[in-house]
């Protein structure tokens, strides 16, 4: 199962890559929303995107709205992983089509728990 991690911080992409590979995901990375859209267009389509909000070029919220406008990408699960923790913005992202919202700082267990809730991980491996 593939995951795309979208964050302008290489450190954060590396931390998330480690969490995801530990539960068996194949992980690709993008440094902003536009790079991520390009990666989706080039394929293959990931099962899930983990998305930072505050990024240069294209922010995570705009990325979510762009993905949700493309019917072929409707099955991609979108999880915000961000410091953006205002109630209004959480509601805005979920309304735009994000499935889950994780606020940094997080623990690996918190990410895995969300993946389990989304039905993407079971017993420490991709479902």
């Amino acid at each position, binding site marked *: 199962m593939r995951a795309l991690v979208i964050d*302008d*911080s*290489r*450190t*954060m992409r*590396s*931390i998330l*890559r*480690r969490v995801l590979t530990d539960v068996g995901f194949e992980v690709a990375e993008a440094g902003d929303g536009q790079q991520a859209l390009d990666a989706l267009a080039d394929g293959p389509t990931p099962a899930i995107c983990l998305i930072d909000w*505050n990024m*240069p070029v294209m922010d995570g919220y705009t990325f979510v709205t762009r993905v949700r406008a493309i019917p072929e990408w409707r099955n991609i699960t979108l999880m915000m992983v*961000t*410091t*953006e*923790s*205002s109630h*209004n913005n959480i509601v805005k992202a979920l309304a735009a089509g994000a499935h889950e919202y994780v*606020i*940094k*700082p*997080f*623990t690996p267990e918190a990410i895995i728990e969300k993946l389990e809730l989304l039905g993407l991980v079971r017993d420490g491996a991709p479902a």
Partner: protein
Amino acid sequence: MSTLESSEQLLPSTDDLMALLEQMWDSFVSPMPLLPAAPAPAHDWSTSVSVDGAWSGRITLYLSDAGAQLIAGRMLASVIAADPAAPAALAEEDLRDAIGELANILGGNLKSLMPEPSVLSLPVVEHSPAAPADDAAPRCRLDLAWQGEPVTVHVQLIASN
């Protein structure tokens, strides 16, 4: 009374700031505690983000060279451990990215405690032996140490654009 002075009550409490810092440290750096310390006379690195909106301020983290290396190394520990070819000392680019992300996380969480709406800037990381600014603007400050290295956090109100 200036606008900034009348806004002093809008500064975060040092307890809130410490709680955010400890949570971030525990998740990404180390469970070893940050301890209260005397103000450090100088720092080598600063990493900051600004918040602009209903509440406007700048959150800056000041670190020593050794502290920045240690902290970035801990943040990237699992990555380094997985790469046998990783060099002993972190590249400056990796160090800048790691401590920039700390300011981003601290600023983003602090922003949620302050009046909304507001926008968070991207982090700015600077390598210069500058002490925290000591101007007249109201501020909240924590002087701490981790692994014997100074960690100073400074929150300062700024005039809204």
